[in-house]
C-alpha cells in the first residue's frame, strides 16, 4: 500500500459509500457522539436504568453489525482464517454493540431528561 495517508483513507471511504452518504454518516455519528457527551455533562450523572437498556441493546448491535458485514461481503464466520480475522470480527461486533448502546442511551436521555 502506497501513501496510506489520512487524505487517502478519506478518499477511499468517500468511494465506498459515495461522497454524500459518507459525510452524512460522519455527521450523524458526530451528532450522536456529541449528543452523548452533552447528556453526560448535562446530567452530571449516569442513569443506571437507561444504561441497563443500553446494555440490553448491545448484543443486538453486535449481531446486526456482524450480519451486515458478512452479508455485504458474501462471507460467513467459517471464513475466519487467522488471528487478525478474529480481531476484525470481534472489532466489528464491539463497534456495533457500543454504537447501538451509545445511541440507545442518548435517545433515552434526550427524550426523558432527569427531573430536577
Amino acid at each position, binding site marked *: *500500500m*502506497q*501513501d*496510506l*495517508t*489520512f*487524505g*487517502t483513507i478519506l*478518499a*477511499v*471511504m*468517500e*468511494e*465506498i459509500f459515495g461522497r454524500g452518504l459518507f459525510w452524512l454518516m460522519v455527521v450523524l455519528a458526530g451528532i450522536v457522539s*456529541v449528543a452523548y457527551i*452533552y447528556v453526560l*455533562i*448535562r446530567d*452530571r450523572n449516569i442513569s443506571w436504568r437507561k444504561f441497563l437498556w443500553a446494555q440490553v441493546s448491545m448484543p443486538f448491535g453486535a449481531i446486526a453489525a456482524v450480519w451486515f*458485514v458478512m452479508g*455485504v*461481503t*458474501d*462471507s*460467513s464466520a*467459517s*471464513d*475466519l*482464517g*487467522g488471528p*487478525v*480475522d478474529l480481531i*476484525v*470480527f470481534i472489532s466489528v461486533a464491539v463497534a456495533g454493540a457500543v454504537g447501538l448502546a451509545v445511541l440507545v442511551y442518548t435517545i433515552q436521555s434526550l427524550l426523558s431528561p432527569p427531573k430536577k
Partner: protein
Amino acid sequence: MSKSKQHEFSRRDFLRYTATGAAAATVITPAKAAAAKTNAKIVIIGAGAGGTSAANRLVDQLDGAQITIIDPRPEHLYQPGLSLVAAGLKPASYVTSKTTDWLPDGVNLIAEKAMAIDPEARKVSTQQGKQLDYDFLIVAPGLVLDHDGIEGFSTDLIGKHGIGSLYAGPKYAARTWEAASKFTETGGEGIFTRPATEMKCAGAPIKHAFLIDDITRRAGNRGKANITYAAHSKSLFGVPIVAEKIRMLFDDRGINAAYSHVLKSVDPGTKRAVFQTPDGLQERDYDYLHVIPPQRAPAVVRESGLSWSDKWVDQGWVECDKYTLQHLRYDNIWALGDVAGVPKGKTAASVKWQVPVVVDGIVAQIEGREQRELFNGYTSCPMITKIGRAMLIEFDYKNNLTPSFPGIIAPLEELWISWLMKEVALKPTYNAMLRGLA
C-alpha cells in the same frame, strides 16, 4: 449567580466547544504543493487506469499544460472485478463506468483510436486524421487480447460449448459464469489455462480455478468434477515462494497441475483442447475450458518503433527503463500500465505505483530537476482461494514479498480480512486512484 448555575453547562458553551473541535479538525488537511507553470503539450494515449489517473495528477501538479487524452472507448472498465463477475458474485455492470466520469476539467478527450506515433517528429495521428503535436507523451493504451492466437477460438464461443474467457470484457465475463456455473452443477473435466506471453494479472486464471472449485464444492458436486490448472511453464506463479504456496493449496483442494501446457487450439464441437507441451502436442477432453489468449502491445505501439527489439519480440512491449518507465531512446516518452516493457506490473495495483513515477518524470523535466520517484516493480494480487478468503500477495522486481501490513496481514495465509479488502476496499481505492487521490 447561584452555585448550581456556575456548574451548569450552558448550550452556548457546548456549541462553542463543539465549533472549536471542528475547527481543529480542519487543520489536519495538508497544504498542497504549488503547481508548476508550463505551456507544455502533453498527450496521453489511453484513458484506462493509468492514463486517467495520470491526467488527474498532471492537472493538479501543472498550471497551464495542454493535456490531451486519446481513447475511443466510452466505457471505463474496472478490470480487477472481472474475476468476481465470472464467478457469479457480481453483475457485469459492477465493472463498467463512463470514461468521462473520471476525467478532470481542463483535459481534452479525443474519442478516437490513436493510429500512429512518430517519436522523431513528436506527433500522434488519430483514426480520423487528427495530428497532435506533443512535448511529452504517455503511452498507456493497455494491451490487446490476441483471440486469434488460439486456433478454433473466437469470442462468439464464450458461454457456449463449455467455454469461458473472463478477460474479454464484462459481457464475456458474465457469459463465462454461464458456462462455468453449468460445470459446477454437472461436473466433468474442467481445464483452466493461461497464455505463454506476458499477461495482465497472472493471478486471475488461478483465482478463477479456486472459485469454481469452491462453488462446485458448495453445490455438492466436487466429487463429479476433475479440475486441472494448465500452467505455461514449470511453475504455477512467477514468484517462487507464492508458486510453492499455490502448489500446496492445489494439493489441498484436489486441483491437478499440468505444467508446461500452453493452449494451442480448441475444437468446440467435440469439446477437445490441444496443448503444446515439451513432449509435443497433447489432446485433452473438457467439459469446461477457461481460455486466456496470448496478450500483446497494440499495433499503434508495435508499428511505431517504440517496442523492445531484443525482448518480447512477439509481444511488442514498450522499451523503457524499469525504474523510471521512461523510454530508453526517447526521453520525452513514458510507458504506463500493461504496455510497459518491464518484468512485472501488469496489474491495477502496479499502475497505482507507476502513475506517480511517470508524472514525477514529466514534472521533473519541466522544473529542471532530478526525478524523485522510482518504480520498484510493486505488484499486488489479492489471490482469492475460495469465496470468503484470499491471500494478499504483494511483491517486487526481486520476487521479494512486500507486505503492506507486515506482522498483521500475513501474505501467504488464506484470510477473511484479505477477502474483505478485495470485496470492500479495492474498487473504492481504484476509483480514488483514478481521481489522482490514492
